[in-house]
């Protein structure tokens, strides 16, 4: 499989144009602005798998929220299929960093939640939910409650919920961060299979350089404070990604390169902070 070529005539699936975001903080009697994103631009084509890495607090989750339409940027815009995003839409779904499950709902009812909001009839939404619960490997846990599940299982419930909405773009915020190493590899494999089967567009935030390179067609590296994109690395590794891919020398090269850039970004921001 190759990276889809971008046809100049059709707009990209997702376009992020020159995003500026500032959070405000009250300090004594005044407010100060903390710039979090400064001129972030990104273009993702249909069916692409893009990873985003960056130092903690550089604004990855904020970028994801802006793309979903949960918060509005001060400047710039987000386009999906060439249409400006002004709020959450059914073409996008988020898998939240903190799971975002409802403790009073069983696994099944949590997965059904989005469909329920859309007014999908009970029988139909249950069918869809059960299918997606099975998809993420949680069959048999339909009637459990989130507090009875491990972190990794909760994360998968959040994933099943996003899947059951059948979005075109899936926005994932460190989805495998609370999973142990073995489960993580299993989930990575499942996600890749699902991706190649459904051709969904995926934006995948992660802390792990290894994971970012292994999963994606492209790795976007962000720098800290205020967050911006320092470099985009095209991952020219073969598909399907299997554990052999990890052993390729090219894999190591790309990973080392990504780490170099990330380090530089961290160092620069430290100097910037020291100067300020």
């Amino acid at each position, binding site marked *: 499989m190759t990276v889809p070529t971008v046809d100049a005539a059709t707009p990209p699936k997702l376009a992020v144009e020159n995003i500026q975001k500032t959070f405000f903080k009250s300090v004594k009697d005044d407010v100060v602005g903390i710039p979090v994103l400064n001129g972030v631009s990104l273009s993702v084509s249909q069916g692409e798998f893009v990873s985003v890495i960056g130092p903690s607090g550089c604004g990855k989750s904020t970028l994801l929220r802006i793309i979903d339409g*949960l918060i509005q940027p001060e400047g710039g815009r987000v386009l999906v299929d060439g249409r400006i995003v002004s*709020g959450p839409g059914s073409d996008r*779904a988020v898998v*939240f960093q903190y799971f975002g499950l*409802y403790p*009073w709902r069983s696994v099944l009812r949590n997965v059904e939640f989005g469909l329920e*909001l859309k007014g999908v009839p009970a029988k139909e939404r249950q069918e869809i939910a059960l299918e997606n619960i099975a998809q993420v490997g949680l069959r048999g846990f339909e009637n459990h409650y989130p*507090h009875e599940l491990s972190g990794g299982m909760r994360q998968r419930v959040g994933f099943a919920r996003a899947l059951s909405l059948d979005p075109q773009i899936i926005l994932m915020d460190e989805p495998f961060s609370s999973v142990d190493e073995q489960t993580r590899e299993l989930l990575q494999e499942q996600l890749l299979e699902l991706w190649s089967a459904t051709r969904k567009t995926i934006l995948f935030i992660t802390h792990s350089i290894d994971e970012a390179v292994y999963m994606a067609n492209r790795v976007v590296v962000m720098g800290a404070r205020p967050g911006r994109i320092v470099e985009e690395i095209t991952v020219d590794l073969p598909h399907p990604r299997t554990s052999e891919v990890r052993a390729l020398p090219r894999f190591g090269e790309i990973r080392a390169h990504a780490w170099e850039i990330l380090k530089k970004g961290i160092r620069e921001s430290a100097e910037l902070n020291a100067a300020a």
Partner: protein
Amino acid sequence: MTTSLAHAAAREAAARRYVKRRNLAIRTGSIALLFLAWEIGGMFTPRIFLAPFHDTVLAFWKLTKDGTLLTATANSLSVLLAGLAISVVFGALLGLLMGRYLRFNWMIGPYVNGLYATPTVALLPVLSLWLGLYAGPKIAIVVLLAIFPIIKNTYAGVITVGQELLEPAVSMRASEFQIARLVIAPAIIPFVMAGLRLSVGRGIVGLVVGEFFTAQTGLGGLLVRYASSFRTAEMFVPIIVLVAAGYGLTSLVVLLQQRLAPWKETERDQGL
């Protein structure tokens, strides 16, 4: 290896059983001592001050048989439950509005906080002037004591319904009404219940005071009537029922709390 482990476990289990039994024995002994002192004290004290414990037991039986106790209890419970029901409904509603609408909070927040800190029993005389002699002022004073913990807890609940619960719903395009019904309402139930648990005790205080000082009905009425005629054996009967009612209702709320919100560790009892 396994056998010695099994031995150790068995020994440990036996030791724990022993501690449990011993604790139970101490508790029973301790409480038995109270009744013994009551019995003996009652025998050597003039009846107008204290009657022996067994007289209270007999009085309990007599009052149960002739229906006095049942009538009084039903009377008191209906006032209490009416007051608590009103408190839950309006307390949860006010707390919800205060938490959800900043301006509403600015408007009534100071009064809610002020009245919560005020000993509202002070309003009883005027309530009984305004609301007459029947259940009105009693229910009103129960509400005035019981509603504030519920308002405060619900309010705290609403403002702690964090982004973690709201954001996914907004992301999935929930309407304001859907958010209220499907996210905020279930999320605040444990807080309402925590408030209600504090309210039970306060409500009973309101009930008793109301029954003392407006028309003397129910358990509180019985209590003053027996006290003023020095019938000390009978006097303890309504007190015992009130203690049991407080204990029973509180336990019921705790049980309900665990049933309705099993994900939430029951917060520690803060007293009141």
